[in-house]
């Protein structure tokens, strides 16, 4: 049994912490929040130079040939820093989808994603609710041509390419396609969300050429697999954010005095912080299990991913809410950074299907396992 990151992986973490605290402190997220930029392009460029976008890509396709454990480490630190960059869309989603695509599509796109030449995103939603196949009926592909609309696409206005779920007009099967977003017939309209530090857009496709990711057109298993794999990585981002919010709350409580002593000395506050710590530990342990399942492509992945995702969503919710509470009135100001975590926590919780969808899925997977 070895259930911790290795020394090399921890070294990577140290580098990530060093880089992000230097180049992507919260002031960078705040710049995007308050300004007109869609993302911190200079941070993104440095991330590319560091090779993070190539972390889990095989060497044959321009990658570093590290594995997904390294990617989990990077994800946790990005989550902690709130860096306003399209990493999750391009790496956890687009790169993951393309990496399991058929040869020609993979050979075309994977090296470009790995070296950061293009930014990718994944377009799933058409209507509200979990990103389940039965809620995806508008986008269709006929003779390699895509029509329809997608909503709430994270980094949709930044990305150069998108993986899109759409129905094959002949079979009705839901498949994954890749679309060049600079192509004619693609319309993007930026939308605002609760977290302005991450870009979102609605996408409209009018007769846009689309390549299927898999040669033999299957059903929606490709989508499911993509959601499970990326859920682990998103969970690590959530874990990092939750722990950052806990640390911020702890620091403040130690320095803020009321009734002649630090508020951190009052049990109501101590116990709040202790419970946040418990939530973070449970989430961390479940994330590690998810990381193991992701890295080894274990049959346990669906259950492990859902467990990590639910725990991490819960931990981030609790920590970001209580962080504001512990800051009192200061926590409710635009000026203090508490709301950055509060916003990101909610965005990350619903962006891939919400906590209740993942709980439903978790129990469904266990039912299926136990019936087998």
């Amino acid at each position, binding site marked *: *049994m070895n259930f*911790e990151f290795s020394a090399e992986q921890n070294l990577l973490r140290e580098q990530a912490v060093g880089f992000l605290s230097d180049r992507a402190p919260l002031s960078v997220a705040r710049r995007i929040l308050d300004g007109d930029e869609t993302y911190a392009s200079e941070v993104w460029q440095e991330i590319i130079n560091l090779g993070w976008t190539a972390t889990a890509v095989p060497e044959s396709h321009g990658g570093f040939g590290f594995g997904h454990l390294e990617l989990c480490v990077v994800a946790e630190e990005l989550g902690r820093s709130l860096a306003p960059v399209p990493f999750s869309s391009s790496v956890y989603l687009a790169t993951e989808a393309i990496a399991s695509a058929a040869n020609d599509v993979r050979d075309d796109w994977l090296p470009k994603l790995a070296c950061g030449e293009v930014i990718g995103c994944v377009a799933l939603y058409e209507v509200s609710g979990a990103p389940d196949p039965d809620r995806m009926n508008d986008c269709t592909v006929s003779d390699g041509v895509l029509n329809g609309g997608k909503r709430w696409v994270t980094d949709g206005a930044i990305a150069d390419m998108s993986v899109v779920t759409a129905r094959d007009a002949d079979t009705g099967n839901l498949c994954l396609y890749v679309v060049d977003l600079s192509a004619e017939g693609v319309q993007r309209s930026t939308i605002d969300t609760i977290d302005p530090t991450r870009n979102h857009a609605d996408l409209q496709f009018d007769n846009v050429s689309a390549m299927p990711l898999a040669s033999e057109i299957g059903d929606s298993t490709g989508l499911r697999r993509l959601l499970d794999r990326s859920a682990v990585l998103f969970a690590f981002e959530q874990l990092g954010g939750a722990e950052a919010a806990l640390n911020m709350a702890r620091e403040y409580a130690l320095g803020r005095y009321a009734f002649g002593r630090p508020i951190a000395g009052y049990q109501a506050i101590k116990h709040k912080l202790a419970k946040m710590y418990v939530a973070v530990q*449970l989430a961390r*342990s479940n994330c590690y299990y998810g990381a193991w399942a992701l890295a080894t492509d274990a049959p346990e992945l669906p259950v492990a991913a859902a467990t990590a995702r639910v725990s991490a969503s819960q931990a981030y919710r609790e920590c970001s809410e209580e962080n504001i509470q512990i800051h009192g009135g200061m926590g409710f100001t635009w000026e203090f950074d508490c709301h950055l975590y509060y916003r990101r926590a909610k965005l990350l919780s619903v962006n891939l299907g919400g906590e209740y969808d993942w*709980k439903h899925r978790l129990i469904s997977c*266990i039912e299926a396992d136990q019936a087998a």
Partner: protein
Amino acid sequence: MDFNDTKEEATFREQAKSWLAENAPAYQGDHTDDFLAAAKAWQKAKYDAGWACLSWPKEWGGRDATPAEAKIFADEETEYDLPVGPFLIGQGMAAPTMMAYASEEQKARFLPKLASGEEVWCQLFSEPAGGSDLAALRTRSVRDGDDWVINGQKIWTSGAHYSDFGILVTRSDPTVPKHMGLTYFFLDMRSPGLEVKPIKQISGQSNFNEVYFTDVRIPDSQRLGAEGDGWRVALTTLMNERAAIGGASGEMNFQTAFNLASETDLDGQPAIVDRGVRSQLADWYCKEKGLEFTGARSQTALSRGEVPGPENSIGKLVAAKKTQDIASFCIELLGMTGVALDHEQLSAYAEAYLGAPGSRIAGGSDEIMLNIIAERVLGLPQDIRVDKGVPFNEVPMGAK
């Protein structure tokens, strides 16, 4: 990151598994009248085959196994419903304290009999005026020649009625601040002047007791640690208590709730179809797995020869409340069947429901565990203590 055993660990697990498969079933599920005899028989079987107290040195009845191996055997053992309760205090708490503080002759005399299950130990710590605030205990010890004379009362002493020996914290000097005036002993539970009275618990059973001391004499050679240094010795015991209690999920676990929800009708369909029920089940699954994998992280630290981090302190806190919630949920699903006696027996859910509050209090209450996490893990300030630095006999007291 590798969730699987190393080659050596896998071999060890196989050996443990096959020995258990051959031997454990015969001792399984005996919760009847002679629970103690059943527990002793199982312990003896393990001892004879070299599976008792694995991480202890060979000379004291163990086999010098690594902590990781001990954990593997413990995990495999919980796959069976075995009577191990009576030994938790002796092996898990008294033994580590004896190893640290007893003389070589005492270790040679007592540890092997703890390992073989011949002798059972209890923990005489809590008192009416000293529970969470253990160091406020008042049972007096006075030196008299080569002996100490003990007077006072202990309470909540689990298993005192069947124990052979006990570990005991006393107040030897009431004129100094509370932590400084304590002295620690072990004693024969058959000592003259010692009286054990059972206390009936809310479950109706009587596992714990009041223990009265009237001029009980303990030889000075059975003092552990220096006179006045009892608090430090007690901390050794308490640290091991938390490790011994841990976060095991017991009978009222996710699977129990999942099975019941799958079988029980709610509005014309299995309860598990209900989204609220599913959400609740998922919460417990995530907690249970979170604790299990937190244990795996500690085990990793152990097998790397490191000291596990503080993350394990969450185990008892999370597990005790989860057990209570699951028992309560199961009863709600069953309705009156859940609370009514059937053949003069309460359902397992109702038994667990009545037992669960004790787990949230014993071995450090929920609130004390939260304080420990806040202070020792997160480094937050201690609570205000009006008794700090005050001689014990001048500290304000509530119930006398």
